[in-house]
């Protein structure tokens, strides 16, 4: 049980964060507090996605194509390519790579093992989600400002009462 929790504690944290956000969206009366809840919810989703791409002992998904081959790869076959700066035009097809599980995984002077790099896909998806989240939060805040200008309050029940009162008068 302890081992299970150690391996899955990240998901527990996101579920708890998501519950906090969801509770704020449903139960809070103030529109700004609802927006804060929505942002917490969004943060939980982003953390969830990024954590799915985590691999133990892996690095960022950026290839070190400028580095001398000896530094990034322990493979002695690739020491003949110290730097390929300014020479991007040619591919480097090298045969006879012993521990190469992916036949054409050569990147510049060295091969890439997928397990040594974090999964880039969640990063890509969340990168755009964050920026679009900021933009949509801006729209939500603009709407909240408009509601405050119109009704003089940001409390949901007071706004609803004013709307219902207006209908009764009509």
């Amino acid at each position, binding site marked *: 049980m302890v081992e299970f929790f150690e391996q899955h504690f990240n998901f527990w944290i996101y579920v708890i964060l998501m*519950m906090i956000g969801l509770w704020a969206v449903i139960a809070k009366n103030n529109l700004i507090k609802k927006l804060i809840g929505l942002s917490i919810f969004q943060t939980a989703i982003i953390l969830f996605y990024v954590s799915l791409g985590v691999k133990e002992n892996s690095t960022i*998904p*950026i290839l070190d194509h400028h580095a001398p081959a000896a530094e990034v790869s322990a493979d002695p076959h690739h020491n003949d390519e110290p730097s390929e700066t300014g020479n991007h035009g040619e591919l480097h097809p090298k045969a006879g790579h012993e521990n190469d599980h992916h036949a054409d995984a050569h990147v510049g002077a060295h091969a*890439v093992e*997928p397990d040594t790099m974090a999964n*880039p896909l969640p990063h890509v998806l969340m*990168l755009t989600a964050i920026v679009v989240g900021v*933009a*949509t939060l801006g729209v939500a805040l603009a709407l909240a*400002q408009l509601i405050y200008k119109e009704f003089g309050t940001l409390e949901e029940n007071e706004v609803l009462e004013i709307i219902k009162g207006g209908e009764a008068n009509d």
Partner: protein
Amino acid sequence: MLSKVFATIAVVITGGLLLYGVMDFPAFGDPHSPPNAGVKGGGESISQYFITQTYRDTKVPNIVTAVLADYRGYDTMFETVVIFAAGMAIFAILRVVGDNNDPTKKELSSDDALSQKGDHNRIIIGTTCRIIIPIVQLFGLYVVAHGHHSPGGGFQGGVLLGSSFILLALSQNLNAALRRFSEKNYFTLAATGILIYAGFGVACQILEKNFLDYGVLQKVLFTDGPEMARSHSMLGVEVGVAFTVTAIMFSIYANLSSRGTLKDGL
């Protein structure tokens, strides 16, 4: 009060179901989990393809940028359009032309308003921001221009550039920022960014390939091969994204902080 009880029950049920679902999830950091390595017998997963083949396909070392701007080019283009649409929506919701609609507006010139806040604050904040803002902008430009070789890209660099203008508006006032980056200029810049992005797509179509299929641009960019054309096109596309994000981030701040009047600010 009763609604809060119901909300708590709903949230606890949702959370309980999700926690139950967690039991089937892979362990944290497992390189052979389905998202990282695909399912058994399903062959190479798409993320493994990206890690091993991106440099061969595009000559871009930053895999995230390559996936963002090339493999998922459509997606990123319309994400940029979403940001542009958000800026337009805020403009449509809040913007008040003229100043007769704002009851809180006092006839205070910006310099009067500032002198009331005390000069000592202004000197410290003003001097600090005078030093910091150019560095932030320079770093933003680096993040955009070097985004396909190191951590960075159009979205991140655009946010940095936009935040430098927001910092200027916060440290002095909104008018000081708007003098350097007026409403006309930022909306022109935002539209230009999307036009640059779409222009790369249309250029590919003119050269008889699919929309955003950058490889064919080697005929106009005079590169060594289609891979380098992809690399250069990604830089151009990222610049377009950075334009739009910079402009829209600042426009969101300017409209929200001044209640749409673009005067005085906070």
